[in-house]
């Protein structure tokens, strides 16, 4: 690969040791703030588990969902989290492929979001099952009954898509961590050393290893993209495949994917902003990073507006009685408030902030992103609930009010997500050390490798393959 030169605003001129010290700090020293945080997350999150247990014991009745609104916040959350999960893998994969060098400090926290958001999101289809304990019937396995899952069912597709994506993005996340774990291993001692020795999978930093890693990453990057797209398309098909007014729409596929990337980037920016403060990474995550992601967010915001406009215009213009009922309930009925909040969160507020260069600061993008995250949740909610409230036969209409259980579980999973992320940031250098250093000097790759290896106290025979320069 040809190492590209780095624009000054991204250049990170810090001594390698300094880098190591900065990035490994959280791993080697644990602040009291960490324990407090973890404690609170657990404390706030735990009720969710009890509520879920209670739901299994009493029945779905404890949730607010009812006839005919058979899906509620649970599915909204599911779609939301799956959307968030598009932050990392997709973005970092794209950035890797286009060799956007500024990506280096960003990729890992992005990919981490993907994995955890997926893990959380995948809980929801199970949580919302009437008989959760039988969820494994979604998997194809040879049973004595000789019954297989129904491969025509979008929920079945979901199962495959999500599990694939989860596996893929986990690999995508873990592969580049190995060298860093090796670094930790070499610094660590005692118990911690034993752990990281296992995690580092005996990484020695030989050029062949570096080469393989590089190749693997490129393959993964290419492979993960279609998966990522397909996942959210399939999630959208959960809705589009059902003949429910306003669900049964062709635009849903791309619409959902766009929305997913949109919320994903927003989530990433928020995460970065927080990490930057919490772990004192001011030197590494620079305004320029935020500004760049901000631009990306801006594009997605515009795309999102385009999609929602296209979707709603066609419905309005088509003017089918069944659809109009749901349509008006959103535009000016019960849900009007939520709808316009959503629009302002996803467009009216972020657009100016991101469009005007002066405002596209770290704080600016942070504000914009957080509103987007909220707005996108509202969007999911508005996709799920209002159409179900207004199906074809007016006699059958109903209203939906979320219950404590649903909200509690939602909060629980949110805390779970944050907790996972916090622990990750504690156990893994949240910024890829070797990549960072890879980007730091204009050096042929193999030499970086060598230097990295030698630095990490591994002694290599002097005969180095003169790799591409």
């Amino acid at each position, binding site marked *: 690969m040809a190492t590209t030169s780095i624009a000054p605003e991204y250049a990170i001129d810090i001594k390698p040791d300094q880098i190591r010290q900065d990035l490994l700090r959280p791993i080697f020293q644990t602040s009291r703030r960490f324990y407090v945080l973890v404690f609170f997350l657990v404390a706030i999150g735990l009720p969710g588990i009890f509520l879920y247990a209670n739901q299994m014991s*009493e*029945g*779905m*009745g404890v949730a607010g*969902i*009812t*006839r*005919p609104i*058979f*899906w509620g916040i649970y599915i909204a959350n599911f779609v939301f989290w799956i959307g968030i999960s598009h932050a990392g893998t997709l973005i970092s994969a794209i950035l890797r492929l286009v060799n956007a060098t500024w990506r280096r400090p960003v990729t890992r926290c992005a990919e981490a979001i993907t994995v955890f958001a997926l893990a959380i999101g995948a809980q929801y*289809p199970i949580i*919302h*099952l*009437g*008989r959760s304990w*039988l*969820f494994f*019937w*979604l998997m194809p396995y040879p049973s004595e009954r000789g*019954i297989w*899952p*129904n491969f*025509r*069912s*979008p*929920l*079945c597709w979901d*199962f495959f898509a999500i599990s694939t994506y989860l596996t893929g993005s986990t690999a995508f996340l873990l592969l580049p961590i190995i060298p860093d774990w090796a670094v930790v291993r070499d610094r660590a001692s005692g118990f911690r050393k034993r752990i990281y020795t296992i995690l580092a999978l005996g990484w020695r930093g030989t050029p062949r290893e570096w080469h393989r890693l590089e190749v693997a990453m490129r393959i993964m990057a290419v492979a993960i993209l279609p998966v990522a797209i397909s996942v959210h398309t399939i999630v959208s098909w*959960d809705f589009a*495949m*059902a*003949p*429910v007014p306003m669900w049964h729409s062709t635009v849903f596929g791309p619409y959902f994917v766009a929305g997913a990337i949109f919320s994903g980037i927003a989530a990433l920016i928020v995460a970065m902003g927080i990490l930057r403060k919490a772990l004192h990474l001011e030197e590494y995550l620079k305004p320029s990073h935020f500004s760049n992601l901000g631009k990306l967010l801006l594009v997605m915001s515009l795309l999102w507006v385009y999609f929602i406009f296209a979707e709603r215009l066609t419905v309005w213009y088509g003017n089918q009685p069944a659809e109009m009922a749901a349509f008006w309930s959103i535009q000016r009925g019960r849900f009007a408030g939520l709808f316009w909040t959503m629009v302002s969160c996803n467009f009216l507020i972020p657009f100016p902030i991101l469009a005007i260069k002066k405002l596209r600061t770290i704080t600016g993008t942070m504000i914009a992103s957080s509103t987007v995250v909220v707005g996108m949740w509202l969007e999911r909610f508005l996709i799920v609930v209002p159409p*179900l409230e207004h*199906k*074809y*036969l*007016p*006699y*059958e209409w*109903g*209203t939906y009010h979320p219950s404590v259980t649903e909200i509690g579980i939602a909060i629980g999973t949110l805390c779970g997500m944050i907790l996972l992320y916090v622990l990750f940031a504690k156990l893994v250098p949240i910024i890829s050390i070797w990549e960072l250093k890879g980007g730091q000097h204009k050096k042929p790759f193999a030499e970086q490798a060598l230097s990295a290896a030698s630095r990490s106290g591994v002694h290599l025979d002097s005969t180095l393959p003169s790799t591409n320069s």
Partner: protein
Amino acid sequence: MAHRWAMVIDLDRCTGCETCMAACHAENNIATVDAKQAARGRAMHWIHVERYWEGEFPNVRARFQPVLCQQCDAAPCEPVCPTYAAYHNEDGLNAQVYNRCIGTRYCANACPYTARYFNWWNPVWDKPLQLQLNPDVSVREAGIMEKCTFCNQRIVATEIQAKAENREVQDGEVKPACVQSCPTTAMVFGDLDDPNSQVSRLARSMRATTLLSELGTNPKVIYLERESSHGND
């Protein structure tokens, strides 16, 4: 031999007396939920009479439409079920297999008629009310989707009987509880594959129509439009 069970409901005869609803409760072990749950829209009526107002006072009239599972030939509920709990059986019924249902409630969303009912709680009967439960029908527990089965238990029983006497099932021999009870004989049940059965004949009527036919679900519940002796309507 396979049948194609269907029902014809004559809206001109239906008086909205709701006898079918009570009969269905008695036959199919449908639980009553309490007032609080009913207020949340969780009351279960596999068949229920929908009332639609037309016009304004004084020229107002109400139209009654008994709605039950339409047993569609192209049922939207079937493909979406990930576990085959909802599937099309050889007699053309939209079967619902309780033990296979894991409660995704996807089928209920997909059903345009909202004819499916979910057990939000475990059903409860104050003793000795449970002594009335029909042993030929399961009692569905919490987390399971249920719906009108065209009184499958009666179909099976009749078929077994016919087989024992090795003969074919006669037209009008199978009567779901609602059909059996309907005071005005607005409901007729039978086999569409048999061109001479009463349902087949009625289905050929000029007044024959289906609910939400534009969705192409090909329901096997056929409604005969209400007539009017003079102009209005």
